[in-house]
């Protein structure tokens, strides 16, 4: 029952291809009916050999065997092409839907789930489900139909002989099931042991610089050897040996059990031929029928495994599908795929997001508090940023600066208090249009392995060459880009060039600027840029920030001091606010920060 419920999600997908699957099932039946003919003709041919038979008749039987084999072949071909094909279509649909769902999931989901884990669900598990839908369904259908058809003809020849011949079949399927379960369990254990080795290698490779700098290579090799020996000689091989013992017996045993059925037929069937109860032709045909059963029987065990793995994997994929986007639009229906509509034809189309008239950019945090995993990160924040103003936020690591920004962009949802833009709570704005008004430069730069142009044009529907050029110029990345052989078409990342930390940050700034946002947010976005470039970027930004609401987060006094207001956060609360001069006069945290930076300089200069 549990299996059925995990597979429930697939019903809609399978339903979409119902007609084709029925056609496939028809082909299964027809191919089996055609296949069953051949032993019949064999029987007639052999039986008539005892009497007088013309060569023409023999030729006719032979021809019939070929004709029916061709028929069987055609239906077999159609069966595979249709049924495996359908599984590929469903896989495609399912993977698209999964990705669409992933696009809608909130940041918290990605923080709580490892990338590798999501990846393995979207790839390995998807593959297991595909196996269930393809070979799983196809071979199940084939085995069932073949069993029925062959059994009918075998019983037709001789009931007792049939029982003898099939005496080992229950043992075969029991053995398949038993071995399947044991193998599955042991296989999992081995996987566990193996993932430890993997983790070790992963860490080693990630830290290769340190290893080389401290000449730890031999020590690492020794450790790896010890670890894999430990697993291989003791646990791993031991576990594996268990598996080998079981596995080593599996296929030879299947062969033996099926072979024994054949011996029964030879022995008992032979006696029946002698007794004249069946003809020699029956005997040969019977042998042929038994041969027709052997592969589907072996396949049965395999199919059971496929179905078990497939439904386990579907369960794991369901975990993703069942995760609801934490943050979504209030008014929009609770569709798991918020931005995708499905029209009647079944093809997907994406609606144009509701575009709000441009906002003015007045931001207000009202009695805002926020807790993350039980820890209070923000306490009772009250702050109004007038439209067009530039505000800076300083504070120690962990004081809540980035959280404030995340709440504004609704990557986290505020729990207490309100955030208003132009006097309206941000929840009232459609998520798409809210974010489309923001240009955000994150603390950790993430660029895509695409061209520089695509990376800068990332957040806009269409970007002209001039727009990309202008954004790059303002972000001070243009001289760098012009220095690259392919300029804006230069690929970033593995297959292209590696940008320095500063170049990455400047590209990210260009990406935010090209959106022409009402609200510009720089979250410590100049940390990897040297002071000279910082100065130039800031000069350029001052121009852009005129008329836009801007929030700058930084550790550097030089970055924040020209802001209209400087906000000092400490342990989630606003402790100071004012202009650079006002705060210096106040002699609080900001003044201290400033003094410390001066003091350091003096100390160093001494």
């Amino acid at each position, binding site marked *: 029952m549990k299996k059925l419920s995990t597979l429930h999600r697939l019903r809609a997908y399978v339903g979409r291809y119902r007609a084709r699957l029925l056609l496939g099932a028809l082909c299964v039946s027809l191919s089996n009916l055609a296949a069953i003919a051949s032993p019949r003709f064999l029987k007639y041919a052999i039986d008539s050999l005892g009497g007088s038979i013309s060569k023409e008749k023999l030729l006719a039987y032979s021809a019939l065997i070929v004709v029916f084999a061709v028929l069987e072949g055609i239906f077999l071909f159609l069966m595979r092409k249709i049924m495996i094909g359908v599984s590929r279509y469903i896989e495609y649909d399912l993977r698209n839907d999964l990705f669409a769902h992933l696009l809608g999931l909130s940041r918290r989901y990605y923080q709580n789930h490892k990338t590798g884990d999501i990846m393995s669900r979207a790839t390995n598990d998807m593959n297991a489900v595909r196996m269930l839908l393809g070979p799983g369904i196809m071979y199940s259908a084939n085995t069932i139909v073949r069993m029925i058809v062959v059994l009918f003809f075998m019983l037709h020849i001789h009931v007792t002989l049939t029982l003898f011949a099939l005496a080992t079949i229950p043992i075969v399927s029991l053995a398949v099931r038993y071995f399947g379960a044991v193998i599955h369990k042991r296989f999992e254990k081995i996987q566990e042991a193996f993932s430890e080795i993997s983790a070790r290698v992963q860490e080693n490779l990630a830290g290769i610089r340190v290893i080389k700098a401290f*000449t730890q290579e031999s020590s690492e090799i020794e450790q790896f050897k010890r670890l894999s020996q430990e697993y291989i000689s003791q646990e791993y091989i031991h576990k594996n040996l268990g598996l080998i013992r079981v596995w080593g017996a599996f296929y030879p045993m299947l*062969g033996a059990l099926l072979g024994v059925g054949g011996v029964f037929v030879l022995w008992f069937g032979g006696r029946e031929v002698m007794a004249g109860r069946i003809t020699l032709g029956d005997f040969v045909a019977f*042998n042929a029928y038994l041969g027709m059963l052997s592969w589907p029987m072996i396949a049965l065990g395999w199919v059971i495994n496929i179905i078990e793995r497939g439904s386990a994997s579907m369960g794991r994929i369901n975990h993703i599908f069942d995760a609801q986007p934490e943050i979504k639009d209030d008014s929009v229906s609770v569709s798991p795929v918020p931005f995708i509509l499905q029209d009647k034809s079944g093809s997907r189309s994406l609606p144009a997001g509701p575009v709000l008239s441009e906002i003015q950019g007045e931001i207000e945090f009202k009695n805002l508090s926020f807790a993350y995993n039980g820890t209070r990160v923000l306490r009772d924040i009250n702050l109004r940023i007038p439209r067009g103003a530039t505000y800076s936020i300083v504070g120690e690591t962990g004081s809540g600066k980035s959280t404030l920004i995340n709440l504004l962009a609704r990557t986290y949802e505020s729990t207490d208090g309100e955030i208003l833009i132009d006097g309206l709570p941000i929840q009232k704005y459609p998520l798409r249009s809210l974010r489309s008004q923001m240009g955000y430069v994150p603390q950790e730069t993430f660029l895509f392995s695409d061209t520089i142009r695509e990376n800068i044009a990332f957040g806009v529907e269409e970007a002209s060459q001039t727009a990309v050029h202008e954004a790059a110029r303002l972000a001070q990345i243009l001289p760098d880009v012009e220095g690259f052989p392919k300029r804006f078409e230069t690929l970033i990342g593995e297959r292209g060039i590696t940008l320095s930390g500063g170049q990455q940050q400047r590209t990210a700034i260009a990406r935010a600027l090209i959106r022409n946002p009402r609200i510009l947010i720089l979250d410590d976005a100049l940390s990897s840029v040297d002071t000279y470039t910082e100065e130039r970027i800031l000069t350029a930004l001052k121009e852009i920030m005129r008329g836009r609401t801007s929030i700058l987060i930084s550790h550097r006094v030089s970055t924040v001091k020209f802001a209209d207001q400087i906000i000092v956060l400490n342990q989630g609360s606003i402790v100071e606010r004012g202009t650079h001069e006002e705060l210096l006069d106040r002699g609080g945290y900001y003044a201290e920060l400033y003094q410390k930076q001066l003091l350091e300089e003096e100390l160093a200069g001494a």
Partner: protein
Amino acid sequence: MQHHEEEALGKAYDSHLMRRLLRYLAPYRIQVFLALLITAAASLLQVCGPYLTKIGIDRYIVTKNYEGLNKVALIYVSIIILGFLLGYIQTYIMQLTGQKIMYDLRLEIFTHLQRLPLAFFDRNPVGRLMTRVTTDVDVLNELFTAGVVTLLGDVLVLLGIVVIIFYLNFKLALVAMSVIPLIFLITVVFKIKARDSYRRVRTAIARINAFLQEHITGMSIVQLFNHERKSFAQFDEINRGHLTANLDSVMAYSVFFPAVQVVSALAIALIIWYGGGQVIERELSFGALVAFIQYSERFFRPIADLSEKYNILQSAMASSERIFKLLDFPIDIKQPEQPVRLKEIQGEIEFRHVWFAYNRLDPKKESAGPATGRALPALNPVTRESEWDWVLKDVSFKVNPGEAVAVVGHTGAGKTTLTSLLMRFYDIQKGEILLDGHDIRTLDLQQLRRSFGFVLQDVFLFSGTIASNIRLGTPGITEEAIYRAAQDVNLEEFVEELPNGYVEEVKERGSTLSTGQKQLIAFARALAHDPRNLILDEATSSVDTDTELKIRDAIARLMQGRTSIIIAHRLSTIQNADKIIVMHKGQIREIGTHQELLAQRGIYYKLYQLQYKDQELPLART
């Protein structure tokens, strides 16, 4: 657009690769030989079945000899049981040997990875290298255990059947075998189709994986920039490519199975037609005819399996090609043949007209190197200087023992490269780097690297304990040395607050520790190894001021009595250096003390002004 691992369009069977793979069997030749012997015996037994049926029919069933039939049945059963035992032993031996080969191979890959130059790791992401050690090795395991021996078994069975049927009746055997060319034809066509679609499927899967990986990692950027629809459209395109490639491969496989089936039926029809005629003319016995039919069924079974085995072979070839490519990647930075071992290192460092480039400039190909990368190019006298993407240009300077040198400059000026070269992470193309007057390329590599304490901007911690992260694998470092080092770098206070002190668990990448704490652990690590020289790539941008002061103090302790080279982003931290080297666009532009350089009013002066002029003004006001 997305980066993905290009699947090498290798051959399904490459004799070079195969020969090299088979070399791994050599240490286990006895086991392999035994397995082959058993396989041969088991194949022989397998071939016996239909012949026994023939005897049963011709000698006993036709003559109504019940006892004889019993005897044949008994022999048949014994053969089956024997076959089972042999099969079991064979599988057992091969699986076990397979495991051992995998162990050898893994160790070889891992060992090679440890020795590869950093240039290799710059080009190859960890995830990909992991695949070499894990998935690719597993694929080969399948080849060794399921492929090689079983394939041989199949061949033996086929041969056995051919021998027996020709022995039974030469003419009928010839007639039955006349379908073989058809099988060849089908197989060749299948091979071509399957090979092409296999490659396309693999490439499509790699693209899907790369795309997913990147988008899951960067999901918040996708969402914040409203890129969902575009991302979805991109994914749909890639996913559709995967679908069509797969549908093509379904076609190839769907044709192959039925085609073999039809040929098999053709063979049986021929046997009935021609063999039946022979029976009538008493040239062939009933039993022999039945045996012929059974043999022809058995003959086509392994051929139908061929497509399965073909897959195994194909992926094994692709995997082994990738593994060998990795193993063949030259270790170009290695111990010199006759290394100079210095008795005592003074710590005198000198750069003499050093030129260095990571890449050759190539306007046609902007991405340098194939997937597995290539060694750093050595300077060919024929190539002109302008063909190189120089990172360092004619850099010369000298640091006396015990001196502290600060390197400053804009990002990308070549500061980090400078330090990497000192430790021989990369070799230079022109010039010389000297330690105590010896070219570092002649020095014992271990001694050279051990003489440096190296603290990177991004601290890398291993999973383990605080103590194990300070000691690493170096055996000579005592507990006391660890405590002392921790004390000296202001780490002690923090460690004492931990419930388990120095044996407190450190998670992967030190995820439970703050940046500042990690920094201090890295300092303790460097100090505990008591290096003669110190290289420090300063990271100051993301710690609070208190930690900053602790770090500042720790750096001062580290530098005491050592030749130190410090890369600094903030000028204030290096003003007490003996010498300041100002790097600009890969060249040294200024060298001198803080005061001297200020007086020069050059690049350093400008950097200084930018950093401090705004802060000095309000100070003057008060």
